[in-house]
């Protein structure tokens, strides 16, 4: 264990911006992808029964 305290952990030895910037953006993007997956499925289920994708309109 490299950390004496929580503030020590959050400081990341002076590299907080780089380390937490990496982890926060990764977590945020994965959260966005999961939300987009759920929205896409909800819309797909709502549109069932209509003409298939690519059918002539």
């Amino acid at each position, binding site marked *: *264990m*490299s*950390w004496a305290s929580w503030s020590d*952990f959050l400081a*990341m*030895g*002076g*590299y907080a*911006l*780089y*380390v937490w*910037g*990496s*982890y926060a*953006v*990764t977590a945020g*993007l*994965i959260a966005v*992808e*999961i939300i*987009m*997956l759920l929205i*896409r*499925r*909800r819309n*797909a*289920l*709502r*549109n*069932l*029964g*209509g*003409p*298939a*994708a*690519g*059918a002539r309109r």
Partner: protein
Amino acid sequence: MSQPTLVIGNINWFRYASPQAFFPLAGAMIPWFAWAAALLCAAGLYVGFFVAPTDHQQGEAYRIIFIHVAAAWMSMFIYLVMAFWAGVGLVFNTRLSGMMATALAPTGALFTFIALWTGALWGKPTWGTWWVWDGRLTSELILLFLYFGFMALQAAIDEPRRADRAGAVLALVGVVNIPIIYFSVKWWNTLHQGASVSLASAPTMAATMLAGMLLMALAAWMYSIAATLHRVRSIILERERGADWLAKYRNTVEP
């Protein structure tokens, strides 16, 4: 034309090449891969932050490695899988193959962006620059554009089977970029380091760092499989929305 068959252990595996058979199978697999991803990620973060020691050269900045390497590996591997399914769809004209390729692209693009982003945030404190036109960085950026190009091309074509074929050609041509990314650190020895597992000096340090890295890489694998299966199910729902077998799922939440 008769249906192709591949019978192993009394199961005709080509049965699952049909969207109708694959849809419930994929749905049953998603929770397993999603839970595996969550548990492996928790274990990887624990090892990465609380077991792996401080690097004697880079200090704590090196802890970016636990996402950077996992994301970079996934970005390349997903592209190969995407090109494989695109190629299978092109040769055998199977609908599900094209859907798999389409479903893989956004997750591949996501991991490519994460690899570039974390690389920039790692490069600044260790190299003193966010970005440099080094062979590894440039070829990884080209990978991101290949994913975007694949998605944009498919989105621009209304008819799904034509979109599959056009995307497949682009995906297969782009495969040449993968060995370029992989060998770039050998071919152009500019800034990006070579083998990442030799980072630490003492072998005991390498062991816990490597463990954290591999756990995160496995988590990224499981997540990618879960996300792709989830997306391919939505694509099946979209493309086959008029099919009788899907009628029972209409307006349901969890088919």
